[in-house]
């Protein structure tokens, strides 16, 4: 059965329970009320009987009638008391019968009757004060048996009524308790259900959100896989194209060389200049193809790694750049450099690009001062910086220099393919790192390379 339906059934059952316990409580209450009324009536009837017969009633008046024969009013009062007492006895017997008690007040009634007879005997009879003893004898009838008779019946009746009231009281208590328990349970059930409904809504919402998230994640992962695939294919194509361009470019350069050799000395000024330009253009093309290959290859982060001692690597690069350093009168200052695990050819390429840039983009008026040093990095990273005193880069151009062919300078002023920094950035990325630049135009530039230290 569905939860909701079950809850409704449970609630209805509880309501029915509350209604029935309520009805039985009302009935028991009513019955108990009746019994209590009977008990009260019994008590008041007994009191009435005692008043009618006791020293304020019948006996009192009877004695006065005997002692004061000149005042016949007492006789009348005694007679009235007698009638009231008899009525009370009738009522008690009636109550006893109604309760199924067979006992009667016969003894009591006959004792009372004897008093009554004596009263009648006194009527028209003359006493004087000397006859008090005689009068006393008439008024003092033995009534022990009568009293026992009344006590007996009263006790039985009281007992009987109490026996009747007790289970009613107990039943009423049980019934009310049951009702209370059921009401409590119903309230609890309702608040529990309300809470459950709330939680159910929350749960459903969460489920829905999870579902949406899962779907998005799947789509994202699909897209990512697709992007990776496309990227890989593009890289392969770029690699193939640049690789295949390299060989005709080299061949063309060789052809120009051969042509120049054959025509040496025979050419006029203009054709000789054209041939020089052709040679320059072809060499630039070779460089471009070479750099494009580096750029394509730098995407690969799975290249083999080895321990790179940056100090030694900088030695090598500076040795290679010796001619340019000498020509420009550059001074290179270095502090101790870190060692880390990386792909050596790539790191070499990166260091070479940065040092070459520092040499290339110098100010014409002063000799270059180049510093290379280790920089503090967060744990798990290694960092070094190359600082120059060159022409600097305006702040709004600093992002452009890392873009493909993002040259800021004219080729006739600063030679290069415009790929050096994009290649370097790719290499840093492939090593889980980055390159940051700070620069003041006309004062110099600092490139800070951060790599993941593995």
């Amino acid at each position, binding site marked *: 059965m569905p939860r909701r339906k079950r809850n409704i059934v449970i609630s209805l059952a509880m309501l029915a329970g509350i209604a029935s316990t309520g009805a039985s409580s009302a009935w028991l209450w009513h019955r108990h009320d009746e019994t209590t009324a009977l008990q009260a009536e019994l008590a008041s009837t007994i009191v009435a009987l005692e008043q009618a017969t006791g020293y304020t009633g019948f006996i009192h008046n009877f004695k006065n009638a005997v002692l004061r024969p000149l005042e016949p009013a007492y006789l009348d009062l005694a007679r009235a008391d007698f009638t009231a007492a008899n009525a009370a006895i009738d009522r008690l017997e009636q109550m006893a019968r109604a309760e199924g008690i067979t006992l009667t007040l016969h003894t009591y009634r006959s004792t009372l009757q004897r008093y009554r007879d004596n009263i009648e005997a006194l009527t028209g009879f003359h006493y004087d004060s000397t006859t008090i003893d005689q009068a006393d004898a008439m008024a003092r009838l033995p009534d022990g048996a009568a009293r026992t008779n009344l006590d007996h019946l009263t006790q039985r009746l009281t007992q009987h009524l109490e026996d009747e009231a007790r289970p009613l009281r107990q039943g009423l208590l049980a019934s009310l308790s049951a009702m209370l328990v059921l009401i409590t349970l119903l309230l609890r059930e309702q608040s529990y259900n309300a809470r459950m409904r709330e939680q159910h809504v929350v749960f459903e919402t969460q489920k829905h959100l999870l579902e949406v998230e899962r779907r998005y994640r799947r789509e994202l992962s699909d897209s990512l896989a697709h992007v990776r695939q496309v990227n890989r294919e593009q890289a392969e194509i770029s690699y193939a194209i640049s690789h295949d361009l390299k060989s005709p470019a080299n061949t063309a350069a060789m052809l120009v060389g051969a042509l120049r050799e054959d025509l040496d000395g025979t050419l006029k000024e203009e054709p000789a*200049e054209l041939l020089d*330009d052709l040679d*320059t*253009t072809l060499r630039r093309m070779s460089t471009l193809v070479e750099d494009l290959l580096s750029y394509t290859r730098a995407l690969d982060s799975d290249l083999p790694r080895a321990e790179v001692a940056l100090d030694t690597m900088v030695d090598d690069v500076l040795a290679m750049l010796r001619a340019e350093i000498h020509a420009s009168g550059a001074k290179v200052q270095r502090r101790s450099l870190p060692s880390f695990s990386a792909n050596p050819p790539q790191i070499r390429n990166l260091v070479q690009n940065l040092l070459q840039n520092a040499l290339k983009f110098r100010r014409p008026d002063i000799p270059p001062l180049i510093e290379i040093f280790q920089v503090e990095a967060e744990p798990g990273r290694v960092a070094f910086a190359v600082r120059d005193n060159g022409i600097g880069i305006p702040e709004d151009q600093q992002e452009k220099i890392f873009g493909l*062919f993002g*040259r*800021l*300078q*004219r*080729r*006739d002023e600063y030679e290069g393919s415009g790929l050096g920094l994009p290649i370097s950035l790719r290499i840093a990325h492939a090593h889980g790192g980055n390159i940051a630049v700070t620069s003041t135009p006309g004062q110099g530039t600092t490139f800070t390379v951060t790599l993941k230290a593995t």
Partner: protein
Amino acid sequence: MIQHLMTIDDEPIDQKLYKRLITRSGLVGTLHQCLSAEDALDTLAQPECPALDVILLDINMPGMNGFEFLEAATEAHGDAFVRYAVVMLSTSTRAEDEARARSFRVVRDFLHKPLTLKNLQEIDTRLGAGG
């Protein structure tokens, strides 16, 4: 006959070849060569700068590129700084570059590099026919 023609291109060798072609064609009176857009703007700002008939403009240049030049020149001189501007596109140029170039009113024509004698003759013809 084109009285005043300006070429704006950062490639020295390309400039050399423009000069050779233009000189040999005999179609141009005076040739003004600028190796950067900044140079060209400076030249335009000179009081002795003659009224230019044609500008051959390269797009991809370091510093200020061809589009930026068109914006700056239009802002400084209105549409009157040249009668006939031609944008030279390299073969790899994307379609959006062409669309962007068309948004300038002074841009009357496009040509793909390299510049040929036929290109020059066509420009001369159209200029003679009133642009």
